[in-house]
């Protein structure tokens, strides 16, 4: 181990002021340098902690589907589709599933995603379909901010 974990020192980095003497010391040690794998990543951007932007995040809402798709159903893969031939009965036969009667709250979605609870008023299958829909949300869609805000890596 040639790393000193806590104290930042010239040996560990490319801090500009360290450049004058750093190369010499790294040459002598010729330490192993791992280039990583093609698919791996060695540059990680620190993102805004949306989880913390407000204490009321758990009170935000995620409509399923968004207001632009009102009346549409959700298929088992989480896509927004037209109602199936069975209409609401599709819920009993593998979908597509009718939209829930109200938007889910951030807290409900978080519990469903991370604590193994079902979304209220759902069956095992419709729960899965709605969650797939929610996971696919992207910027600009209704509920996306809310969804981002519950992505809290900490437990």
């Amino acid at each position, binding site marked *: 181990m040639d*790393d000193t*974990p*806590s104290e*930042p*020192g010239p040996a*560990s*980095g*490319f*801090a*500009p002021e360290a*450049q004058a003497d*750093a*190369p010499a010391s*790294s*040459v002598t040690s*010729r*330490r*192993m*340098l*791992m*280039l*990583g*794998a*093609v*698919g791996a*990543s*060695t*540059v*990680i*951007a*620190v993102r805004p902690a949306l989880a913390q932007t407000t204490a009321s995040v758990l009170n935000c809402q995620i409509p399923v589907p968004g207001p632009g798709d009102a009346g549409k159903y959700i298929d088992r893969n989480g896509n927004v589709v037209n109602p199936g031939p069975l209409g609401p009965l599709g819920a009993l036969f593998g979908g597509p599933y009718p939209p829930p009667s109200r938007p889910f709250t951030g807290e409900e979605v978080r519990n469903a995603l991370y604590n193994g609870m079902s979304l209220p008023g759902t069956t095992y299958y419709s729960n899965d379909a709605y969650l797939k829909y929610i996971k696919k949300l992207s910027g600009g869609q209704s509920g996306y901010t809310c969804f981002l805000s519950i992505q809290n890596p900490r437990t």
Partner: protein
Amino acid sequence: MAGPRYRAAAAALLIVEPLDMFTAVFHRPSGVTHLLNEPAPQILEALADEPLDRDALLARLAQNFDLGEADGTAVLQARLTELETAGLVDRV
């Protein structure tokens, strides 16, 4: 020829804070903080003084470090692409 030459963002554009195996870098033009893991900080260091193409960079790194047996060309290209996307290196 090994394609374009790359150079690291100017030192004045970066604030570097070595942590442990990671290095935190604040990139002034974007306002983004990046956490860099080996070999990204070493690549930036190698590209700080003069622009190098990929093969020259590999040779430079091999001078200073033991890169092991495998051919590093493809992996190094992946690293460069990653750094370029982040704006930490650009092509000359």
